[in-house]
């Protein structure tokens, strides 16, 4: 647990006016009943409130997909970009305005398939971006095609006999690529998610939070989940273990489960700072 978390605890539980961060005229949102994206948005707004950041100092950038509709609903500086390219747009923004808090909202298809290359190179540079990957194991916006996180054997409109492509683990990939903060949360563990996002926002460097979320409309129906809550229980509650509990459990109890919480954190030079000192500093002789 990082320093200051206890102090923030109180702040997190304080109710606040969500309208401060929303664009009420853009509501209702497009997300289906049972979709967890709204819960994630709530956790994100509360984490931002707790961070003490001025909303005008925040820029939210998204790609394409259900999760990427988020910036349309929130009253920050926002950009809805291209499928898979949010990282590249965000890199440009952060580079031009290093003092701005740049948050990337993306999904598993957006970040790990069409944007996979940008994802790993963002992590490699360790540029100071907060990246939230809404992982629901499906392309929801286009009608339920399997994605790079669809588990083996699962059904999608493009895998009628079960998916034969092994899924990515976004956290392992982020860590291997060089991100200096890697965490996982779920829409089920709402308070924990708030804390994880807050910690990610406060970290300097590429901070990736893989958020396990449910798509009852496509993934759920095709894979015989009874309801949205059933999905949350099976995938998010029973399908994950917090890193703290994991230490106490025997390996067989961890099989097939994803770890939750901060999985990796290190101090590594941040890209914009490196550029300012190592390149511009030398180029200008200062």
């Amino acid at each position, binding site marked *: 647990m990082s320093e200051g978390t206890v102090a923030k605890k109180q702040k997190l539980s304080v109710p606040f006016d969500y309208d401060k961060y929303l664009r009420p005229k853009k509501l209702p949102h497009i997300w289906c009943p049972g979709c967890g994206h709204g819960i994630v948005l709530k956790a994100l707004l509360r984490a931002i409130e707790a961070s003490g950041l001025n909303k005008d100092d925040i820029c939210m950038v998204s790609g*394409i997909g259900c999760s990427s509709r988020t910036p349309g609903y929130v009253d920050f500086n926002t950009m*809805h970009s*291209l*499928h*898979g390219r949010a990282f590249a747009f965000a890199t440009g923004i952060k580079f031009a305005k290093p003092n701005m808090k740049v948050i990337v909202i993306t999904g598993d298809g957006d970040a790990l*398939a*069409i944007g*996979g290359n940008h994802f790993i190179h963002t992590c490699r540079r360790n540029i100071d971006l907060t990246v939230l990957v809404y992982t629901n194991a499906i*392309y929801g*916006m*286009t*009608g339920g*095609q*399997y994605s*790079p996180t669809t588990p083996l054997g699962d059904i999608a*409109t*493009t895998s*009628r*006999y079960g998916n034969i492509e092994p899924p990515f683990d976004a956290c392992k990939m982020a860590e291997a690529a060089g991100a200096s903060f890697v965490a996982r949360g779920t829409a089920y563990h709402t308070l924990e998610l708030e804390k994880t996002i807050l910690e990610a926002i406060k970290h300097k460097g590429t901070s990736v939070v893989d958020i396990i979320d449910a798509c009852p409309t496509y993934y759920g129906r095709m894979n015989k989940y009874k309801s949205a809550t059933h999905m949350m229980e099976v995938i998010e509650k029973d399908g994950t273990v917090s890193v703290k509990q994991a230490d106490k459990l025997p390996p067989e109890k961890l099989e097939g489960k994803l770890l939750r919480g901060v999985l990796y954190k290190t101090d590594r030079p941040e890209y914009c700072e490196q550029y300012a000192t190592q390149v511009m500093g030398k180029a200008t002789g200062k």
Partner: protein
Amino acid sequence: MATNTAMKKQTGLTGNSAIAIAMKQINPDVCPAYPITPSTAIIEDFSSYVADGDVDTELITVESEHSAMSACIGAAAAGARVMTATSSQGLALMWEMLYIASGMRLPIVITNVNRALSAPINIHCDHSDSMGARDAGWVQLYSETVQEAYDNLIMAVRIAENEKVLLPVMVCLDGFITSHAIENITLLDKAEVQSFIGEYKPERSLLDIDHPSTFGAMTLQDAYMTFKHQQSEAMTRAKDVVSSVSAEFAKKFGRNYGLIDAYRLEDAEIAIVILNSAAGTTKVVVDELRKQGKKAGMLRLRLFRPLPHKEIADALKNCKAVAVLDRADSMNDFGGPLFNEVRSALYDGETRPKVISRIYGLGGRDYKIKDATDVFDELSAAVKTGKTDTLTKYITL
């Protein structure tokens, strides 16, 4: 034969479903795909045909359209008959490979369900996607109806694979308006489609180890221009091939499509030139004006690449004033892409009509009877006064 086909039972299908059925009947060897609205349902239906064993196609669900077109090129170079479908940003992401496909002379066939380009993001119909690819060396066919889109796709295979052409072909239809609306359509039998398209025997392929070949190798000042000249000549020849394939299709199946659809143009003094589904609305207005004794007509291009410039000039030769309606803007302060090409085609005529550019229906904005009526009123006034109001203007704003 034609009578028999006409008597076949009609069915109701969306444009996307009809395209998917055409793909099923064509039974391509490889289909690499990535989903994008509004073309997704094509591959969705097609993936069911793959799952049900109705086709022999290998469906590769890749990680982006960039990869989809790259895989199309790889498979086509290996000698496969290849198809896919996309829209908008998907086509834009394929842009780099579109030139590779045509430069390597690979007869790939894709369906482009026309949708506006970002930004701002929009999922509805306009033609900015395929117009952006108009110089990529692809044959482009545009479709007014679900029936025409289905027929065009079947003909596209023959056009692309014709030894005088060997160019990729793009079949365009309007997003949502044609892709999602259910229309009456008469389907062919699979056997009829198979007999019409024939077996694909690539002249060269990477897997033909007895005749080794290379694709896309470095050419500099010595040979690059020769390749491009050959490609350009193939595009010129494509016009006659589109004509002959369409004539054969008409003879066999009774549906006759020319390079252009000249509607009541014989004695027309005023005319609208337009692409795809908006032609239907325009024809209604032409009929109404004809009832009032006004000599109105409409020209719809089915073939845009190569441009049937002689046919355009001939069809409009009696007109005194013409409005070219573009569902895309060239952002050049000089009218849309269709306008510029049609106007240029009219330059060598004995009597040049007044030609104006009107941009309509961007991002799915409706084009209604009144919009077409207003344009015809403008043209009538231009005939009377000999003057046009403005050369280029946005309508349906």
